[in-house]
């Protein structure tokens, strides 16, 4: 690749070493800026409010983390709302992976009347903004009796245009027609082809879509804020926002502890899938 060529060339030039150090210094500065808010949250969550309000500001972690955690758990049902978030994000991810990959397989590899029209419709749906759907969705959910329950979050998100489009692009290249032909000659029906031929090949694509969906659902805020009308049964993001709304000007240490702890599951998922995620992220943009 070009990078090895570049290294060789760079090594030949005088002063390139110093420039390399300058470059890395600038990049490290950027990393520090990216990481700083997390560090700041750690500092805040380990101090009492009076320490936080004192000047000069604390720049090193303190010792009051356990107290902040205790008062956090006293003020919101942290694990209950975390369970709700896991339930929503987990179910949606599972459903999206299944429905989207199934539909994508059809769009990528089969011909049928009306296909083009349906696909154009799919792309159009992609563009419809959420606000246009918010009120009627709320009304429909209320009629169905789903307002206040996690069903209101899971069902509408169970399949989406982005996932179908993305998986279709992935499948077009990854699944070879010869494989499908061979499996059909062996007598495999459509579902078997999907399960035994298509899915194993596109596993990396599924991993990306899965991580992407999970994180998006975990972080979703606007719709849960509206749809979850029972303040005792909400997702983690809504619980955090309630905490900030009621205690945000008085008990910063506790609120910050909540913000920090809410990031932990996300960071774990990211640590597992970072490589996959970043590798595939740009595919839609540069194709």
């Amino acid at each position, binding site marked *: 690749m070009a990078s090895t060529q570049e290294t060789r060339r760079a090594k030949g030039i005088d002063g390139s070493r110093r420039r390399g150090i300058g470059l890395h210094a600038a990049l490290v500065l950027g990393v520090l800026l990216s990481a700083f808010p997390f560090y700041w949250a750690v500092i805040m969550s380990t101090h009492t409010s009076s320490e936080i309000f004192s000047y000069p500001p604390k720049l090193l972690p303190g010792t009051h983390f356990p107290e902040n955690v205790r008062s956090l758990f006293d003020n919101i049902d942290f694990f209950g709302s975390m369970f709700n978030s896991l339930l929503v994000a987990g179910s949606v991810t599972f459903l999206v992976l299944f429905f989207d990959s199934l539909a994508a397989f059809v769009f990528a590899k089969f011909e049928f009347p009306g296909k083009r029209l349906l696909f154009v419709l799919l792309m159009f749906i992609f563009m419809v903004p959420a606000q246009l759907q918010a009120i009627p969705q709320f009304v429909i959910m209320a009629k169905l009796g789903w307002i206040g329950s996690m069903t209101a979050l899971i069902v509408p998100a*169970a399949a989406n245009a982005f996932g179908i489009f993305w998986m279709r692009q992935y499948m077009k290249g990854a699944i070879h027609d010869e494989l499908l032909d061979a499996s059909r000659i062996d007598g495999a029906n459509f579902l078997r082809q999907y399960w035994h031929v298509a899915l194993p090949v596109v596993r990396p694509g599924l991993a990306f879509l899965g991580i992407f969906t999970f994180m998006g659902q975990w972080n979703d805020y606007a719709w849960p804020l509206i749809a979850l009308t029972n303040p005792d049964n909400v997702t983690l993001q809504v619980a955090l926002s309630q905490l900030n709304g009621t205690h945000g000007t008085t008990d910063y240490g506790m609120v910050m502890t909540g913000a920090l702890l809410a990031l932990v599951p996300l960071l774990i998922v990211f640590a597992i899938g970072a490589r996959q995620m970043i590798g595939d992220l740009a595919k839609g943009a540069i194709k």
Partner: protein
Amino acid sequence: MATLPALEKRPAVVADVPVTRPRQGFRKYWHLYAAISPFYLLFLCFGLIPVGFSLYLSFHRWDGLGSMEWAGLSQYRYLLSDSEFWSSIGTTIVIWALATFPMIFLAMVTAVMLNSAVRFKNLYRVAYFLPNVTSVVAIAIIFGSVFSTNFGLVNAFLQAIGFDQIAWLNTPWGIKIAIATLMTWQWTGYNAIIFLAGLQTVPSELYEAARMDGAGPVQTFFRITLPMMRPVLLFVLVVSTVTGLQSFSEPQVLLQNTSNDSTFSGGPGHAGRTMVLYFFQQTFDNNDFGYGAAVAWGIFLVVVLFSIINWRLVQRRGEE
């Protein structure tokens, strides 16, 4: 935010598909329709019907409980004369501009640096991407404390170098800058990675040729890198426009306890009330569903118009 697909992509019908001689009729294809049906059914229930219904609603007066009352075009007429809506458009665009231009600049610089730094490239990419995966709620809470008037780090820094404190979340520009800073922080790394992917598609022969012709790094960047990056730049700009103009969570969480009349009020003087915040306020605080629907269509129009303008600007620059 979702990565939108490349815009110039056309939904093409593939020719080389493994079909046997097509038998006519639905029976032959029923399993294919069944396989794609979940999405379309969901879309029908929670997408198409809602959009149609919101159009219908916008011609009515409705508080969500009582009976609907025909209002004709009066909601839209009111929207056009509603100075609060217009000022929310202005607020949104100012915040968008304050966030997007520094973000694109920083992302481009970062991407160019990453492209030339050979060691630790993957490590850097992970670190830069981290802000983007964290929840807006948690980050807005954290940024709220960084910009706090009394104990915020920004003010402590200003104080340390001899400036006066600024009530960031209490002044019109302070609010906008705080929101924009949050957005810039969250999206710079994401876009840098997209730019980096774009940079890696530029053929190295082009750089080689430029070097032979004696072009310096700055000239190379403006004459080769930037023109080659136009599609990626367009992608980033359009995505930033569509998402940035619909910002809601950042101002809502950041400013929810700076005012006690509504959690959607956008802070003192409504300085951080974006279009979508205004929509939520009208709809779910005032229970004015009819007007809310009209506001939603107004937002849709603004976003579409603004995206087209941005697109045109980047495209035209390319033709020169």
